[in-house]
């Protein structure tokens, strides 16, 4: 069974949605039922980080080997990573409205970091669009992508820790989620959800790569 991970992905996401909306949750103040967003909001960011990491790895491969299919993959992973970043912002915004009382909190470092991270990758796509020559586009985009990933990590991992004033759980003196999850009910759904969403994001990426390759074949462009 070649595509076992696709079946696994469907299975895990069915489990996530069914258990996510109807499974047992701890009794919590303020958060209440909105804790179920844990299975959707957090995995989006995990998926984005992993896809952006893979995109950077393919960029490094491109710089060392100069094969255009590495560039196709790097760009496809960045595209889907960007999509999951937007989904992370939307799910987060809904959650923020329910618990903090506002769609967007301007003093919140993680939100600003996420917004800036999306801008960094939006610039990546604009850079790609600015070159006519395919080899130059791939090479310069790869250089920028490596830079972008390092700064992305600084934005969402280093800055929130230094500023130490986040409203997010586990930051700025707020308790982390593990303190809510005393009977491990959340974990039972959360871990499968993370794996399921990551598999889905990779699946979408493989489809985009295939579409791009078919397009290139049809127009007689190089695939190596």
């Amino acid at each position, binding site marked *: 069974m070649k595509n076992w991970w696709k079946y696994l992905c469907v299975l895990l996401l069915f489990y996530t949605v069914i258990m996510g909306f109807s499974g047992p949750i701890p009794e919590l103040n303020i958060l209440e039922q909105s804790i179920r967003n844990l299975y959707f909001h957090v995995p989006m960011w995990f998926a984005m980080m992993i896809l952006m990491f893979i995109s950077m790895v393919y960029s490094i491969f491109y710089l060392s080997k100069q094969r255009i299919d590495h560039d196709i993959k790097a760009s496809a992973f960045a595209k889907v990573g960007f999509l999951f970043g937007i989904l992370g912002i939307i799910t987060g915004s809904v959650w923020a409205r329910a618990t903090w009382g506002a769609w967007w909190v301007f003093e919140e470092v993680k939100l600003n970091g996420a917004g800036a991270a999306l801008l960094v990758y939006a*610039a990546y796509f604009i850079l790609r669009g600015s*070159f006519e020559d395919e080899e130059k586009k791939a090479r310069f985009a790869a*250089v920028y992508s490596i830079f972008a990933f390092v700064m992305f990590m*600084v*934005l969402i991992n280093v*800055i929130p820790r*230094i*500023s130490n004033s986040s409203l997010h759980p586990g930051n700025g003196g707020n308790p982390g989620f593990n303190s809510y999850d005393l009977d491990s009910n959340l974990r039972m759904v959360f871990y499968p959800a993370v794996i399921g969403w990551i598999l889905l994001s990779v699946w979408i990426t493989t489809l985009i790569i295939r579409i791009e390759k078919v397009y290139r074949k049809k127009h007689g462009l190089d695939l190596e």
Partner: protein
Amino acid sequence: MLNNILKLVKKEVQLEWRQKTALGTIFIYVLGTAFLIYLIFQGNITIPTWIALFWIIALFTTVNAVSKSFIKDANEQFYYLRSIATPLEIIFSKIIYNALLITILALVIYAVMVLFFNENISDKGLFLLTILLGSIGFSNLFTLLSAITARTQNFVLLAILGFPIILPLLLLIVKMSELSNFAIQDKDIYMNLGAIGLLDVITLILSVVLFPYIWRD
């Protein structure tokens, strides 16, 4: 290698000095912006606003000053430079030159801002150190990015690529500037200085490692 880098830096300084209009443009730009802000705010601003305005002017001036650093070397000069110097020598010389230029511009902006608004930053030494570290970071990032954007016809690209990427550094610098005015405990100062220094080192390493890939034709 060190010798060559110094020669290349000297070449940059001479070229800049020869084209006094370009230099004049930047200075008038700084003066004009500061005057505009003075008129808008009518001279009354608080220290956080002062710091924010200072770094915004510094950022925009940097983009304008650095954006042409590789355009000069287009065409024939590009091939000549490639034949006499290694990519490492080129990037180091450009980064050193741009860091010098940005530091000087930042000091000019500082002088102009003091002239128009008076400032009351209590620890001036610490603020000058922040300016120096910030200029080095700006130079590391924008030198590499300007090498990328010099190859496109898209002139807004440097700002689009640079602003989101400079953001972590900029946030730390603004925080540091505020700390140099008022810090509750010394620990915060060291932590922020350390973070800025670390970012300077990271961006320098990335620029130097990645530049050879941009420099080939």
